[in-house]
């Protein structure tokens, strides 16, 4: 497995070690006549915090699922180093079932039954006091923290999150992002899909901008919003941009 991968716009990750966890090479996916992914190549290194951005239908979730091995690909290769991957899908009804499941039981799914490891992981995300509670009784932000604890309990090397803060209040989002930063400092690679581009740019060490193919892969400070965002968000973003300019003019 090579330790560096470049795309036309890629630069070496700034804060990453050289240990490659995932190596995706020329990944393409065609369903029917539609090309969902087109020759996508990138690596994920340990300790990186990657923000994956792009418009709806850009193939972000599909790419994540391909990386996770949940989505077969038409062409290319995805090599995974011997590592454990934690996955937090789009916030939804997963644990919001008619049937009760406790916070501790969810985290123990990650620790494969080890109660001590599960409790330590809950402490890390400041949810130990809720161990005996039903997960469906928690707020959205708390539920997401429990899922991070589950990933920690499974000793994940990579944490993949698909729009984890959708529908979560701002304070809980800040707490959530603080936990992600802490994980990164421990060498865990974090890959997060988000529509909140501004937040992504302030948080991550590397941005991958996807619209079926990779448009940009590099550090957030070099990400040219004017160049890529109108292309990503089309008219809506241009109008937003125009409004901001008008406010500035006033």
């Amino acid at each position, binding site marked *: 497995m090579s330790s560096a991968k470049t795309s036309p716009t890629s630069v070496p990750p700034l804060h990453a070690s050289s240990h490659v966890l995932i190596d995706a090479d020329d990944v393409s996916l065609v369903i029917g006549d539609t090309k969902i992914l087109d020759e996508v190549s990138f690596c994920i290194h340990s300790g990186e915090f990657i923000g994956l951005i792009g418009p709806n239908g850009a193939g972000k979730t599909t790419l994540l*699922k391909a990386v*996770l*091995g*949940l989505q077969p690909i038409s062409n290319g290769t995805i090599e995974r180093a011997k590592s454990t*991957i934690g*996955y937090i*899908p789009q916030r939804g009804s*997963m*644990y919001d*079932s*008619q*049937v*009760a*499941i*406790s916070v*501790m*039981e*969810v985290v*123990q*799914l990650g620790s*494969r*039954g080890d109660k001590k490891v599960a409790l330590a992981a809950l402490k890390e995300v400041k949810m130990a006091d809720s161990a*005996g*509670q*039903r997960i469906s009784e928690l707020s959205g932000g708390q539920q997401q923290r429990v899922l991070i604890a*589950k990933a920690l309990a*499974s000793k994940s090397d990579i944490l993949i999150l698909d729009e984890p803060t959708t529908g979560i209040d701002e304070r809980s989002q800040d707490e959530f992002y603080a936990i992600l930063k802490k994980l990164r400092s421990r060498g865990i690679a974090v890959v997060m899909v988000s529509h909140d581009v501004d937040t992504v740019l302030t948080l991550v060490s590397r941005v991958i901008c996807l619209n079926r193919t990779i448009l940009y892969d590099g550090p957030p400070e070099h990400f040219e919003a004017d160049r890529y965002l109108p292309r990503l968000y089309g008219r809506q973003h241009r109008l937003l941009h125009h409004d901001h300019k008008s406010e500035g003019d006033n």
Partner: protein
Amino acid sequence: MPEILQYGFMVRALIAGLLIALTIPLMGSFLVARRYSLIADSLAHVSLAGIGAGLLLGFSPVLVAVPVTIAGSLLLEYLRQNKRISGEASLAILMSGGLAIAVVLANLARGARTDFSSYLFGSITTTSMSDIVTLLIATVIVLLVIGSNYRALLHIAFDESSARIAGYKVSLLNYVLAAMTALIVVLSLRIVGGLLISALLVIPVITASRFAKSFMQTVIIAMVIAVIAVVVGLVLAFYVGIAAGGAIVISALAMFIVSLLLKP
């Protein structure tokens, strides 16, 4: 000794009922969690087709129904996993198709209508000693399989994608759970009846979940509710002379209504 226990058929019905009350809510907890509550209903209808075939051919109806229903469960799981047809649609197709075949076969099997009716709504007089032995073996199999794969099944029930990523044999376990559900459904036909079996799979679990804080608590409370429903139902069936399945399900329903009153 209470009068009810002086009759061999009643003792057999109670033993069989208790075995059912242990296994059905256990499997039901996993199935309801993964929003697959109607699987028992569909499989029960398929099993009725097997019963009809058995009656027509003159073989033991249950022995014919077991392979037919297990095949139906594997087909259902195949369709679900391969997304050929949506889960809901495949349940509906199997449910109506199974009942249609059952009715036609039962009609063709002259003189078997009374017998067929007991498989629809349950009967306390039909449980034989061999039924109990078969049910006991099936219960042991279910407890062993679920006990040894508890965490994997729990992971799959709540988060199938993560279970796959964690390396569990998700497809295999889904097929196994479907086949075990089919087996228990067929063996429960005599007591609860094909048209009522899914109620025993769902109602105790939903009732238990209103009070439980964890999955394990849900399973235990659901089992207790199912045991009470089965005992009360069979006693009612004996003294009032009503269909056992109906009495069992009404008992479970009564407990659900009480739970709504206690915790609106």
